[in-house]
């Protein structure tokens, strides 16, 4: 059957659609042909697939062929069954008849003959030519058609339909379609059944020796082809898949005899993945099967063709990629028979072919997004596979120097084994010029030094040394693996060694091994090849292998190779960018960048490198980043991109320390510093977060009171390899809980030198608002450059692994407390002090958990108070004061040694006192002497009418201001009120009035102070008008003195006084001046309680006690108001009453009540001056209105003075007034007083009086 292969091939190529035969019985085809062919191709054809499920084929091409056509004739019966797929799938019998008899006699038998002939699917189309208006013809046609139906229709199947040429044909064409389709479907089913049966039969014999794969193949492919013709591509594809499986089974079956693999013909190196008819099958047949190389490609090509017809380019790509991989493995198995590097070349061409065919069939945007991504990924894979193979070929022919030794290329190439030809291609004899050229190139090629003087061992691009591998493969022919025996030799021939070829070394080292390979070394054939020779040999061999001129052109020169390499890399990268595999894309961008970089296209290179670096640094792949970043930096430097270059240098510095040598890191730093100090056109802020990190010191945060400055200690880690000078440095503090607070910067303006590693830095902290603060951003300047570091406080040193460090919750570094009282100032005394005496005032200075170091107290006394600045000021511990005051209330402060730690004497400077250090933390009492002055004399009050004393009088204020805190930033102000008072309050009363005119004056002394007062002496200075009863100065008898008055108690002293003679004129003056009570007293009190002995008394206590203090209080004594000496009486008027014009005698009697001896100042004591005054309108007086009368000075002498008066006016009028002008009114007793008014009656009517009108 294999002989039919050629024929099969030609049949397949000639027919690609279904055939429907037309049995034109009545010669009608030319009439209906156009109508029939209009139906082609069939729309929505309904067919059964292999599993007998209905499948709708959108468009089914077919052809109507007359049975008389030559194509349907002249077929051998054997062909008929084998190539059954090309036979007609339906037979249309075209008939017409206008006569019933003719039908019965001629047509019917003929039809019967046609349809009974075989099992052809047929149906009869009766064409009626009857005109629609010709009723008879129409009826006849109907009749004949009815007959036809009766004869040929069965119950199961209708095989007739009728076409009215002139009539309406509404239903006919649909009927025709369905009839044709039914026939095709049935035929197809039957043929599928047939092929399946055949195939099954053949499959059962598979393991028999007679089995022939070709036969199986023809049957299987016939079936597949039939499916393809009927557009059941899915089924067709399945058949091909099965065929492939079956083929692989036979190929891999053990025990099968070894067949030729194929692939040895010219042009085989170009993959025929998408070219099913690249080679006729008859050419690849071998024995009873096919050569693997061609046949597998053929099968794949058929599959891909069907997949493309199914519009599934993605599947083509995915199947293609795995096919290439698996086929490449197969090629590897047969590599020793194939031409040199056949495998690599095939893969390249296969990938490129697949890429071409899939992209041309690919419609963008039709597929689901994930399928689309998958497609691009596969494209990328294909590109990158071909790229790797191209690099391998290029390396073999000596372009290895131009391939970037990047991780990508190294990963791809160094794990890819060398080609394993049976014998490494030998060096062509006439190529010495090429060898020289290659050698020259090798010598010229010097590895480009990396920027910053970075030296790295280049990554390998070769799985093992090519020189060694090539020579081994050559030597294995004759000399065994002698290079493996002498590794030193191979190393001697390594790339580096070639630059200085050691001419003597080869023979020398080989001589020692000559025993294993006697004498063969000197022969030119088996002489170990030099690397340049290997390259030339490989180039020649490849030239033979590669049949595609385009591909060869790519390898013909370095430039062309680079171009192709760039194309492939770009293709891969672009496609990967569209897929899920972004990393692949970006990494390949880096490879493109490397090429640009090499050719000085720094702009593009930098752009691509940036992407790569962003990828690596974003995910923390520092090792890979360290490889690319120096390149980026170099590009940026060349492009004068200072900002980028700086940040690259900083990034380089912040990479793991192990990735670069110290020297290299130092050069990074020097670049940074150089740029920072240069005049940059556009100074950029520098982010050194990864390089300079900082944190507060471990332990509790610094705690400050509100308003206090402080010193913040911050730990700064420097990632620089050398010391670095920071021109300035500032840190922001961010309040943790209040968002509106914003951040405040604290600055250290002096230059700071950071050592590598940990540094402690102290920053002066100005007063902050209350709250808790965390460190914010570190900013500063290196040279002219501002830098920032955002890193928050980290627990550990910066060098651990600062990428991806998940931020710890930031720890507050500073707490500023809310304002609270830090100190309290209070007066230490509770009761009044002595007025007008220097007194100690105690101020309790109580620090409230706050140090008063360096505190200064300003004391400002108010009006009426001054500090006795001649005296020292004392300060002592408050606890001590408490002890003394509780134990012993008496003033024993002398026992306190001035030298003890907690007692200090201070002096006042401009109203300021510096507190001693020991008082920083403890409560202390500051004592300073003051003198409250009150110029007014204390006034005693009468106990009869007690006068309220105002407390305000004795109130004095002291304004205190304490400046304290670390930099005297805190102040505390308080005004302390101190009450001063006189020691006594004096009240007086006249205790008794003796008959002899002596008065007992009781003076009550109220103690006003909480101290014991001792009255040493007291006397009374009387005002004029009073005299002491005795002849002394009124001191009380000394037996009662000294008189001790306890606090808040009273004491009384009696003074005996009497009225003295007083001139009347002095009376008022004497009242004003008053009497003075002088009390000499001593005081014994504790200054912690209140009044105490005056400050001065301290120094001279003994004499002070003797001298005592003097208290003066004014007393006002008043002489008794009434002291009548003379009595004046108005003698009664006549009872008849007064009448106008009537003379009456008014009489006053003057009587001496007592002797006026004392008052007799004038010589005429016995004479009294009198005066009578009267209103002259009312009265007319007769007699002497004024005159002296003699009145003996003896008590009881009396005299009556009469004055004749005439009332002039009637009514109530004042009577005339009698006065004694020279006698004080107080000495005149006018009792009874003269009447206030007297009644004057009108005159009796009388002619003798005429009142002029």
């Amino acid at each position: 059957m294999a002989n039919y292969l050629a024929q099969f091939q030609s049949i397949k190529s000639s027919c690609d659609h279904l055939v429907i035969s037309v049995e034109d019985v009545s010669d009608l085809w030319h009439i209906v042909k156009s109508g029939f062919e209009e139906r082609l191709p069939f729309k929505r054809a309904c067919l059964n697939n292999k599993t007998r499920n209905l499948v709708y084929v959108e468009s089914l091409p077919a052809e109507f062929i007359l049975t008389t056509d030559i194509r349907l004739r002249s077929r051998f019966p054997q062909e008929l069954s084998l190539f059954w797929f090309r036979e007609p799938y339906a037979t249309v019998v075209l008939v017409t008849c206008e006569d019933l008899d003719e039908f019965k006699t001629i047509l019917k038998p003929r039809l019967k003959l046609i349809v009974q002939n075989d099992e052809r699917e047929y149906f009869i189309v009766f064409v009626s030519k009857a005109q629609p208006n010709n009723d008879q013809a129409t009826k006849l046609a109907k009749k004949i058609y009815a007959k036809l139906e009766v004869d040929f229709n069965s119950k199961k199947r209708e095989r007739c339909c009728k076409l009215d040429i002139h009539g309406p044909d509404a239903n006919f064409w649909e009927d025709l379609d369905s009839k044709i389709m039914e026939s095709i479907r049935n035929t197809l089913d039957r043929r599928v059944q047939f092929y399946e049966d055949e195939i099954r039969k053949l499959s059962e014999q598979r393991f028999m020796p007679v089995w022939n794969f070709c036969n199986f193949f023809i049957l299987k492919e016939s079936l597949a082809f039939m499916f393809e013709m009927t557009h059941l591509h899915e089924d067709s594809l399945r058949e091909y898949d099965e065929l492939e499986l079956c083929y692989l089974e036979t190929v891999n079956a053990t025990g099968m005899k070894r067949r030729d693999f194929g692939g040895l013909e010219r042009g085989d190196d170009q993959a025929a993945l998408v070219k099913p008819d690249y080679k006729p099958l008859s050419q690849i047949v071998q024995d009873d099967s096919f050569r693997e190389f061609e046949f597998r490609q053929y099968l794949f090509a058929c599959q891909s063709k069907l997949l493309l017809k199914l519009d599934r380019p993605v599947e083509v790509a995915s199947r293609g990629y795995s096919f290439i991989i698996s086929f490449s493995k197969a090629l590897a198995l047969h590599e020793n028979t194939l031409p040199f590097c056949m495998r690599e070349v095939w893969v390249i061409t296969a990938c490129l072919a697949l890429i071409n065919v899939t992209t041309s069939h690919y419609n963008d945007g039709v597929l689901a997004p994930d399928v689309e991504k998958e497609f691009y990924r596969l494209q990328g894979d294909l590109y990158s596979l071909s790229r790797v193979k191209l690099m391998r070929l290029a390396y073999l022919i000596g372009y290895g120097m131009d391939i970037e030794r990047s991780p990508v290329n190294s990963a791809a190439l160094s794990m890819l084994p060398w080609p394993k030809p049976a014998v490494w291609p030998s060096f062509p004899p006439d190529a010495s010029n090429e060898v020289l050229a290659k050698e020259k190139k090798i010598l010229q090629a010097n590895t480009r030094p990396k920027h910053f003087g970075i030296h790295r061992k280049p990554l390998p691009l070769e799985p093992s040394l090519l020189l060694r591998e090539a020579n081994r493969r050559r030597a294995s022919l004759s000399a065994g693996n002698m290079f493996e025996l002498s590794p030193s030799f191979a190393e001697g021939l390594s790339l580096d060694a070639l630059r200085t070829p050691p001419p003597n070394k080869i023979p020398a080292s080989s001589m020692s091994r000559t025993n294993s390979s006697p004498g063969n070394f000197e022969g030119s054939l088996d002489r170990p090849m030099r690397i340049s020779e290997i390259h030339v040999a490989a180039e020649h061999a490849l030239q033979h292998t590669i049949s595609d001129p385009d591909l060869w052109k790519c390898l013909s020169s370095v430039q062309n190779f680079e171009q192709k390499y760039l194309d492939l890399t770009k293709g891969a990268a672009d496609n990967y960018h569209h897929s899920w595999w972004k990393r692949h894309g970006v990494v390949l961008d880096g490879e493109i960048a490397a090429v640009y970089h090499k050719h000085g296209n720094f702009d593009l290179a930098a752009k691509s490198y940036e992407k790569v670096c962003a990828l690596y640094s974003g995910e923390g792949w520092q090792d890979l980043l360290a490889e690319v970043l120096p390149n980026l930096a170099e590009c940026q430097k060349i492009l004068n991109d200072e900002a980028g270059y700086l940040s690259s240098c900083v990034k380089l510095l912040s990479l793991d320390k192990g990735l670069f040598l110290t020297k290299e890191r130092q050069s990074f730093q020097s670049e940074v510093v150089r740029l920072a100090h240069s005049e940059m056109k556009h100074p950029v802020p520098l982010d050194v977060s990864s390089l300079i990190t900082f944190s507060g010191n471990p332990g509790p945060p610094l705690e400050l009171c509100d308003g206090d400055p402080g010193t913040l200690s911050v730990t700064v880690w420097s990632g620089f390899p050398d010391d670095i000078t920071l021109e300035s440095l500032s840190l922001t503090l961010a309040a943790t809980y209040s968002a509106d607070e914003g951040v405040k910067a604290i600055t250290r303006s002096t230059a700071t030198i950071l050592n590598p590693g940990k540094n402690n830095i102290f920053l002066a902290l100005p007063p902050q608002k209350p709250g808790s603060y965390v460190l914010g951003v570190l900013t500063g300047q290196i040279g002219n450059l501002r830098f920032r570091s955002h890193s928050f406080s980290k627990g550990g040193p910066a060098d651990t692994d600062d990428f991806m460090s998940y931020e710890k919750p930031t720890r507050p570094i500073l707490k500023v407390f809310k304002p609270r009282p830090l100190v309290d100032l209070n007066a230490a005394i509770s009761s009044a002090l002595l007025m007008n005496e220097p007194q100690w005032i105690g101020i309790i200075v109580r620090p409230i958990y706050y140090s008063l170091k360096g505190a200064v107290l300003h004391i400002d006394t108010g009006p009426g108070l001054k500090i006795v600045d001649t005296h020292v000021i004392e300060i002592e511990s408050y606890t001590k004061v408490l002890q003394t005051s509780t134990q012993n209330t008496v003033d024993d402060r002398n026992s306190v040694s001035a030298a003890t730690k907690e007692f200090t004497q201070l002096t006042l400077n401009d109203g300021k006192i510096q507190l001693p250090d020991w008082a920083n933390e403890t409560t202390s009492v500051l004592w300073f002497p003051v003198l409250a002055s009150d110029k007014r004399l204390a006034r005693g009050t009468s106990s009869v009418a007690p006068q309220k004393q105002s407390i305000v009088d004795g109130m004095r204020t002291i304004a205190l201001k304490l400046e304290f805190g670390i930099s005297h930033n805190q102040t505390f102000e308080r005004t302390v009120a101190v009450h001063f008072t006189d020691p006594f309050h004096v009240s007086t009363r006249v205790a008794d009035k003796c008959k002899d005119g002596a008065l007992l004056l009781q003076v009550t002394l109220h103690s006003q102070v909480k101290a014991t007062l001792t009255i040493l002496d007291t006397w009374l200075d009387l005002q004029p008008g009073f005299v002491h009863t005795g002849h002394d100065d009124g001191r009380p008898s000394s037996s009662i003195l000294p008189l001790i008055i306890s606090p808040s108690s009273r004491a009384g002293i009696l003074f005996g006084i009497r009225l003295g003679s007083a001139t009347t004129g002095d009376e008022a003056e004497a009242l004003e001046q008053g009497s003075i009570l002088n009390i000499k007293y001593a005081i014994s009190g504790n200054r912690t309680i209140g009044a105490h002995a005056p400050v001065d008394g301290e120094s001279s206590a003994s004499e002070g006690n003797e001298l005592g203090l003097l208290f003066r209080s004014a007393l006002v004594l008043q002489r008794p108001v009434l002291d009548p000496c003379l009595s004046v009486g108005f003698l009664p008027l006549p009872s008849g009453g007064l009448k106008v014009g009537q003379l009456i005698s008014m009489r006053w009697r003057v009587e001496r009540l007592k002797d006026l001896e004392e008052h007799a100042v004038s010589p005429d004591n016995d004479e009294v001056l009198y005066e009578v005054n009267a209103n002259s309108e009312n009265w007319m007086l007769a007699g002497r209105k004024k005159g002296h009368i003699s009145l003996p000075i003896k008590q009881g002498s009396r005299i009556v003075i009469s004055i004749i008066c005439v009332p002039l006016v009637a009514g109530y009028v004042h009577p005339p007034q009698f006065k004694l002008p020279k006698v004080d009114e107080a000495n005149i007793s006018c009792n009874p007083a003269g009447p206030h008014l007297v009644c004057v009656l009108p005159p009796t009517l009388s002619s003798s009086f005429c009142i002029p009108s």
Partner: protein
Amino acid sequence: MIVCIAVVGHQNNPLYLQSFTEADDALKLHHIVHCSLDVIDERVNNPKKTGPTLNETFLGLLYPTENYKVYGYLTNTKVKFILVTTDLDVRDADVRNFFRRFHSAYVDAVSNPFHVPGKKITSRTFAERVSTIVKSFGLSTAV
């Protein structure tokens, strides 16, 4: 032969990478591991593909390349283990077993209170244990 084993954190940052090649070419293994993250991402982000293996930690073969194989393993905390081997016929069961043992070693290493989560694993004990596991993997495939 296993040439490389790597632990990659949930942010795709390398946590541990140990190569077992003699040559000084760890960088290319870095590259392979890094790029294979693409495949893991693709599988994890494509629910259609990971449908049946929803709770499966073993991701299987990531790269069907010609010369080496990359296997992946994804823990519940999205930490990835990546294995690069040059053995071209490796049984999945072996790899699963390897990863299981490696996982327990990893869990022990990160349970160390001195280990900072998300930082590189620097434990020497872990490295020793890993190399033991790697060696035994070679043995089991040889047998």
